[in-house]
C-alpha cells in the first residue's frame, strides 16, 4: 500500500488511486497508416520493466486527474511523480 503524492491533492493513500499501465505510449495520430504489426505494437506490446518504469496513475477517488509516476517495479519505490504533459524527469 503506497502513499502517493498526487500532484494536485498531495499525499494520499494508494486506495484512492488506480494504475493505468505504462506511460508515454502515444496513441498514433494516423492509425490507418499503420501496418497490423505496428498497430499491435501500440495496442498490446509492453516493456513491462523490472526496474525503473514510467507509468500512469489516476486519482480516481479524489480529483480524477491522471498523472505520471516513475517507480522501481522491483521494490515498488516511487521515484518521482509529474503531471500529464510534463517532461519526464531524467534518470
Amino acid at each position: 500500500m503506497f502513499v502517493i503524492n498526487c500532484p494536485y491533492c498531495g499525499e494520499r493513500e494508494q486506495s484512492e488511486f488506480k494504475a493505468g499501465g505504462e506511460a508515454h505510449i502515444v496513441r498514433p495520430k494516423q492509425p490507418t497508416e499503420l501496418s497490423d504489426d505496428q498497430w499491435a505494437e501500440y495496442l498490446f506490446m509492453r516493456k513491462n520493466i523490472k526496474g525503473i518504469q514510467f507509468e500512469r496513475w489516476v486519482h480516481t477517488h479524489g480529483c480524477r486527474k491522471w498523472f505520471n509516476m516513475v517507480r522501481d517495479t522491483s521494490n515498488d519505490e516511487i521515484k518521482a511523480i509529474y503531471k500529464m504533459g510534463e517532461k519526464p524527469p531524467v534518470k
Partner: protein
Amino acid sequence: MTNNLRVKSSKFIDETYKISFRFNNKTYYGYKGDTLASALLANGIHLVGRSFKYHRPRGIMTAGSEEPNAIVQLHKNTSRTEPNVRATEIEIYEGLEASSQNCWPSVNFDIGGINNFLSPVLPAGFYYKTFMWPASFWMKYEYFIRKSAGLGKSPTEPDPDMYEHKYIHCDVLVIGAGISGVIAAKTSAKNGFKTLLLDEKPYLGGSTIYQNSEYFKINNQISSSWLEKEINEIKKIDNLEIKTRTSVAAFHGYNFLLARESLTDHLPLHQRYEKIRHRLLKIRAKKVICATGSLERPLIFDNNDRPGILLSSAIEKYSNLFGVSCGQKNVLFTNNDSAYETAISLFQRGIGIEAIIDNREEVDSKLIKEIEKNNIKIYKGYTIVDTFGYRKINKISIMQLSKDGQKVVGSKISINCDCLGMSGGWTPAVHLFTQSGGKLKFRDDDQVFIPDKYPSNQISIGSCNGEFTLDEILTGISKKLKDFLNIKKTDYENLEIQSHFNKTKRNIWLLPSDKIIGKTKPFVDYQNDATAKDIKLALREGFRSIEHVKRYTTTGMGTDQGKLGNMHALGIISETAGSRMGELGTTTFRPPYTPLTFGTIVGRNVGEYFDVFRKTPIHDWHFENKAKFENVGQWKRAWFYPKENEGMHEAVQRESKAARDSAGILDASTLGKIDIQGTDASEFLNRVYTNAWSKLAIGKCRYGLMLNEDGMVYDDGVTTRLDENHYIMTTTTGGAATVLSKLEDYLQTEWPELDVYLTSVTDHYATISVCGPNSKKIISKVIPDIDLSDEKFPHMSFKKTKIDKVKCRVMRISFTGEQSYEINVQANYGKSVWEKCMQAGKEFNITPYGTETMHLLRAEKGFIIVGQDTDGTMTPIDLQMDWIVSKKKYDFIGKRSLYRSDTIREDRKQLIGLVTENPKEVLEEGAQIVADVSKSPVEMLGHVTSSYYSPNLKKSIALGVVKGGKNMMGQKLIIPMENKQINVTVTDPVFLDKENKRLNA
C-alpha cells in the same frame, strides 16, 4: 486440585479475583491475570495437546505468542468456538472452556499415538514416495490422510461477534512496550510527535517489568522499579496513545502496518454482547520504531519435546509474573548465562533446582557464582542426550561434550526431574522488520541475524536489534533516538547501569548424541514434528535451498510459523552442507506475525455492508409494489412485478404484452448519464463513438456505439444534443463508471487540446420511461404544456420542460420499438413524477415493468444488450451494425482494429435471430449452436445469447451469434442439449416491426 504450584503472590495476579474455567471437561480455578497456560501449570497440568504427525504428548513450552504446542480449541460445539488458540496468549475469564486438539479419545490416551511407533517409515516427505498404487486409490488414501491431519475444528456456525477497522495516521509508531519501547515512546511523545505505542500483552514493560534481581539495576534501582516509574509517567502524556493486547500482524511498505486490538477476548462471555471483539488498526506511520524484543531459543537434542520441557525464560516468567512454579525439581539446560537468571529467580522463590547443565566448559560470572554459592550442581561442558517420561518428563540423561562439541564422551549420568528449562540463547524478533522489506546481516559472535538495511523510515532498538543485555540496550538508545527523531536531547543520556551478564555462549545447533541420528528424535519444529534427522534426510536427497528443506520437511510451516526452530533449521543445514550461515540467507517471514482471524481482517464489511447497495430514487415504490429485484453491478433494479400467484414467467408475459398493447413504465434511472460541455464536444463524440456527430441538430438524439481500441464493442447508449456545445450521454448501467473514466483518460492524456468537460449526472436524474401506443396520451396528461405531435416532437428528439414548477428533460427515444418517452427529472422529484405517470396511465392500464420485460421487448426488436449479446469479442460488423460505423471519419477509438486480418474475416461470429421449429420451445440462453452433430467433436458455430417466449409474437424467439451467420438466413441449425436436439432456423434478428411503424403509431 488446588493451586498447589502457586508459590508466591505476584502483583500481576489478583488473588482476590478467582476465576473458574474448564479444560477437557474438568473445572479448574485460576486468578485474574492468569493466562490459560499459567492457570493450567498452577494446577499441575503440563500435557495440553498432541503433535501434528506423530501425536506425541506435548505440553506448554513458552509463555508467549511463539508457543508451538499448547494450542487448544475454545468453546467446542458453540458458535464462539475457535481452533488452535495458544494457551499462552489467552487470558482466562469466567466461563472459559478449552479442550485439547488432534487427539482421540483423549489427550491422555490418543489412538493416533500409534504414529509415533510407525515413525521409522514416516520420514520427511514419505507421502511423495508412496500411496501411488493402485493408481485410482489416491482419493481413498487421501480421505484418511485428511482426517488425521488438521489440528482443531473449524466453527460450523456464523460468528456472533463484531469486528471493526480503524485507520490511524501517526508520526511515530513504537512496536513493543518493553524497556526500549517505553523509552522510545516517551522520548518521541515528549518531543511533540503524535505517537502510538502497541504491545501484544495486557501489561506494559516487557520482560524487564518482572525482573527482580539485584544484579540488574538502573540508576541504582532494580530495573523493574525504574521501569515502573517510567510507565507511570508515559500514561500521562497527551499525544501518546497506548494500546495493550494489540499485536502487530503485518508491516508493509511505506510504513503501513496492520495490528489487531483485542477488546473483549479477556472478558467474561456475558460482558461481550454488543461490543466489538477485535479492532483491526490500519496504521500509516511517518516513522516506525521496532522494539519487538527477542525469543529464547530451545536446544535441539533427542526427545526434547516432552511435556514439562519449557524454555528457561518461560519458567522464569511463570514464576515471576504469575507466581507459578512449573515444577518442584527443575533442571536447566543452557549454553549461555540466561538460565542462571532463571535459576536465581526460582531460588529466591524457594523453587527446587536439581541441576544446571551448561554446555560451556569454562564459564564464570557473578550469576554463576551466586548459584554455586547455593550449592546447586552445575554440570559444565555437558549436554543432555535423552529424556524420559511419556506424559511428562521424569528423568534426563546427560553426557560430557567433546572439546569440539561434535561428540559426547564418558558415561551417562541420570538426573531425575519434573521440569526442564532450555536456554539456547536469543533470536531477535526481526519478523516485522523483514516483512517490511528489511535486509538482515548475520552476526557470527552469537549466531544471530540482526537488521542491516532499513527499507523505510524505521529503526529497530533493543533486543530485536541484537542488544540483549541491559547495558547494551541502554547505552546506545539515547543517541539512536536522537538521530532517528532528529531531536537534541533525551532523558536517558547518563543512565547508570549495572548488569552482570556474561555474554559468552557456546552455540551448537544440533547437540551430539550417543545414538546414531537415525534413532533419535531431536525436534526442530515441534508442532509439525520435523526433526533434525528430517532436515538431514532432505539434504541427502538433494534439497539444497532453505525453502526446499522447509517445504520438504514442513519445518516452520506450523501455526507458530517456526518462531522457535527456524534458526536451528538454518544452522543444521549450513553445518551439514558446510556453508556459512550468513550466506544461506533466511526463509521469508510472511505476514501475519501472529495469525489473524478472517473476521478481524474483514471488519464490519459483512452482511448488509458486504458491498454497497445502490438504490434509484423510485426504489421505495418498487419495493412497496412487491417488485423482485435483480443485482446489476451495485444496483438493485426492479426485475419484475409479480401479482398474486404469478411466477416470473407469467409476470413478464403480462408486462410485455401490456407495454405493446397499451402502456408500460420502466425505471431507467440506473443508466449512466454524462454531461458533456465544451467547444469541442462534437469532435470529442466523433472520436469516441463509431458514428458521426457533428451534424446532429440541437434537440436531437442519436444512438452511439463505443468500441475499445481492439475494435470490440464496449458500451452503447443514446446521446442528446442539448445545445451547440452541450450533450448528455447515456451509458449502460454497468458501464457508467468505466466509460466516464475511460473518456476522462482520453481527454487528459491523448487529447488535452480538446475543450471538453465531463460531469457525471447519473444520480441527479430519475429516468422514467413510458412506452406503448398510449404513451403519448399519458405524457400529455403529465406534461400538458408540451406539444407531443410527431411533427413537433418526433422520435429521437428532446425537449426541456417543466412538470409543475420543476424543470425536467423529456426525450422521445425507444429501447422497445414502441412509441416511448423518457422523462429525466431531478431525483428527489422522481418518485412523484413516477406516481403521476401511474395516475395518468391508470385508464390505459399502465403497467410497470422490470429489467426482464425490458430485455424481452428489446429482443423482439433485435436490439442488443452489451454484455449479454456481446462478450468482448464482437465488432459492430459482427453485430450486423455496419450502418453505425462511419466510413468517412478518419479515426475513432477502435477503428484501426476493425481492419486487422482476423477482424475482416467473413466467417466471424455474427449476430442473428433464431426461431425454433416448435414455437413453444424456448431455447436456453448459453446453449451452443451447431450445424452437424454427426462429427465428433462437434463443431460449435456459436451460442444463444438471448432467448424469450414472446407474448406479442406468440412464439419463442432468440438472438445468437453464429460463425458466418450473416449469410445463413433461413438455414436450419441444431441446438444440441444434453437430452435432446432442438431444430432452429436462422432469421433476421429483428422479429417485430421491421419497418418501425410502431414508433409513430
